[in-house]
């Protein structure tokens, strides 16, 4: 029997029968696109004219001086349209939707970045759009809900389960099994059943392709280490894919929440709380109990607050090619603060996990060496969470006044 989409022991396609034909179609259209030399060109054209590719590689001179170790470079995925690397995947899948002749897209979203990116793509290509978002995330990422709705998408708050990202994925699948004839599910990360992990990584590989030549141009040699935050793992896959065959350390940083021993985190690859399982259509490390029931996860960053992780990253962990670490909520807030004050950069809370770990390691590295941090998204969306973390009195005053205006 043909098993598809495995990365050694991880991945696969654990699908309800009703979706088999849909996945066959998707796999075929993806294979055809990959084999078509014009397709990647078309994709790059879209990304350079509708988004902001190539995104710059910024030398963080002040941070480098501050830590006194490796030269710190930052890949600016935050400068994509809609402010995150999510646009790469979404526009790519949008081109596939056109090839399949479907008229509606659905997506899950955690932080809202993937939902906003999907909503822009749908508006641009003329698709109907429905976004599933956990009720908890609707609350903590309210500005993105506003933008999705203004862009013409229907946002459905998911009230079942833990009411975060994984529950939004379940609901998106439930929609898809009813409407697959005209609907494509734009899965936002390198997880889920085959071909999603490979397909999302394929579109995100544009990050690694660019940054590899940018760093060579900037300093004539490869970086020593590259850092990316890991939720589902799509921005990490994008960055890592540029250096898989190079002597470069790949470091993925997971959500350490309140600490790896607190039971309140979302670290699948670097904590003892995760084990291999099968859920949401694929096999990987999940945060689950001994019965196989998924556990509650926690992160200050909605986009990392997920029970599973890309099967490709699980494989890179098992074969030792990549290293996985965790950053806690408080380390992350401190990293955002430092990046703002030293470089005027505003990383998303998700991306700031990579910053936090790189900051810890930079000082001990040789000043001749360099490291790259993937700033996967911008932090504007986190204004409420960050304002709360800093307990900003002027902001609180403003919100109170604003509320009074609405009440008046």
């Amino acid at each position, binding site marked *: 029997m043909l098993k598809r989409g495995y990365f050694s022991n991880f991945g696969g396609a654990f699908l309800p029968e009703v979706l088999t034909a849909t996945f066959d179609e998707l796999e075929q259209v993806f294979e055809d696109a990959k084999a078509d030399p014009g397709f990647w060109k078309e994709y790059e054209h879209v990304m350079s004219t509708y988004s902001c590719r190539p995104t710059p590689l910024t030398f963080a001179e002040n941070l480098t001086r501050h830590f006194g170790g490796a030269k710190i470079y930052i890949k600016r995925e935050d400068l994509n349209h809609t402010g995150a690397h999510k646009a790469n995947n979404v526009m790519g899948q949008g081109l596939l939707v056109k090839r399949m002749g479907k008229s509606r897209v659905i997506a899950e979203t955690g932080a809202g970045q993937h939902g906003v990116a999907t909503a822009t793509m749908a508006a641009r290509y003329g698709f109907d759009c429905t976004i599933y978002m956990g009720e908890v995330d609707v609350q903590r990422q309210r500005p993105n809900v506003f933008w999705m709705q203004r862009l013409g998408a229907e946002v459905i708050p998911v009230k079942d389960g833990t009411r975060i990202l994984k529950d939004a994925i379940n609901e998106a699948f439930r929609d898809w099994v009813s409407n697959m004839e005209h609907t494509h599910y734009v899965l936002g990360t390198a997880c889920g059943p085959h071909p999603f992990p490979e397909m999302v990584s394929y579109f995100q590989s544009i990050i690694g392709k660019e940054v590899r030549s940018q760093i060579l141009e900037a300093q004539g040699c490869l970086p020593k280490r590259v850092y990316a935050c890991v939720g589902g793992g799509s921005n990490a896959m994008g960055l890592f894919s540029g250096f898989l065959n190079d002597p470069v350390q790949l470091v993925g940083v997971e959500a350490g929440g309140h600490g790896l021993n607190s039971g309140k985190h979302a670290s699948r690859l670097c904590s003892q709380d995760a084990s291999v399982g*099968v859920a949401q259509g694929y096999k990987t490390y999940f945060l689950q109990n001994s019965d196989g029931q998924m556990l509650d996860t926690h992160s200050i960053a909605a986009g990392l607050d997920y029970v599973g992780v890309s099967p490709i990253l699980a494989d890179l962990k098992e074969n030792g090619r990549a290293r996985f670490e965790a950053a806690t909520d408080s380390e992350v807030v401190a990293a955002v603060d430092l990046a703002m004050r030293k470089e005027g950069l505003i990383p998303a809370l998700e991306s700031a996990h990579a910053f936090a770990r790189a900051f810890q390691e930079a000082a001990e590295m040789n000043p001749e060496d360099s490291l790259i941090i993937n700033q996967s998204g911008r932090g504007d969306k986190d204004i409420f969470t960050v304002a709360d973390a800093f307990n900003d009195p002027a902001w609180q005053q403003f919100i109170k006044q604003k509320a009074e205006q609405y009440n008046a």
Partner: protein
Amino acid sequence: MLESYLREQRRHKDILLMTHIVIGYPSLDASFEIISTMVDAGVDLMELQIPFSEPIADGPVILRANQKALANGVTVKQCLEFADKAAKMFKIPFLLMTYYNILYKYGVEAFTDKMAAMGIRGAIVPDLPPEEGQSYLQAMDDHKLAPIFIYAPTSSLERMQKIAGYARGFIYCVARKGVTGQQTSFSNELESYLARCRKSTQLPLALGFGVKEKADVDFLKGKVDIAVIGSQTIRIVDKKTIPAAGEFLRSLRD
């Protein structure tokens, strides 16, 4: 064997009824009372669902039953003890229904050993296609347990024939796209799908998803061997009482 039991039953019934419960919903005791009531009402076989936190193929009614059972603290061990008790107490065949992760974490071989020891006759694992089920199929076969596979309206004849090669007991045909517990239109379109199902295999056929009244069961007579009642009895137990679910099941074949 499950298949021969079904054929035997079919000799004097024009359609069989399979019902479904989520173990531990609304409670373990109530689940047992529901089984007893269903057996009294003459159902021919039952699927006992072990709750899972991510029941991706289930609609709102069964999804919430899964969540409630887990919130009540039901464990896989308790579910297996429950199934053991049911299989010993009642004469009809029982199947376990759950998602693959439950088997995977328990150990596929250990799980099938347990099923065989308890006298459970087969399993339905909706997120395990035959392509991914090599160790499961082997373990089920070793114990003469029936792996029940699913056909969907989106399955081609070729796909159905392939699935039938791995299936034992019967084939579970889902009536339509979508998840459990939604409206199904019992129409000509369904009839042509069922004709395709029939053509693909000699195994008995069951039809489920959206079967909720006598007219639906009547429509299925002569087209399939088993009508599956899933969400509807949960709704009745939720809104009315356990005995009301028994009356409802009796009314389906009157």
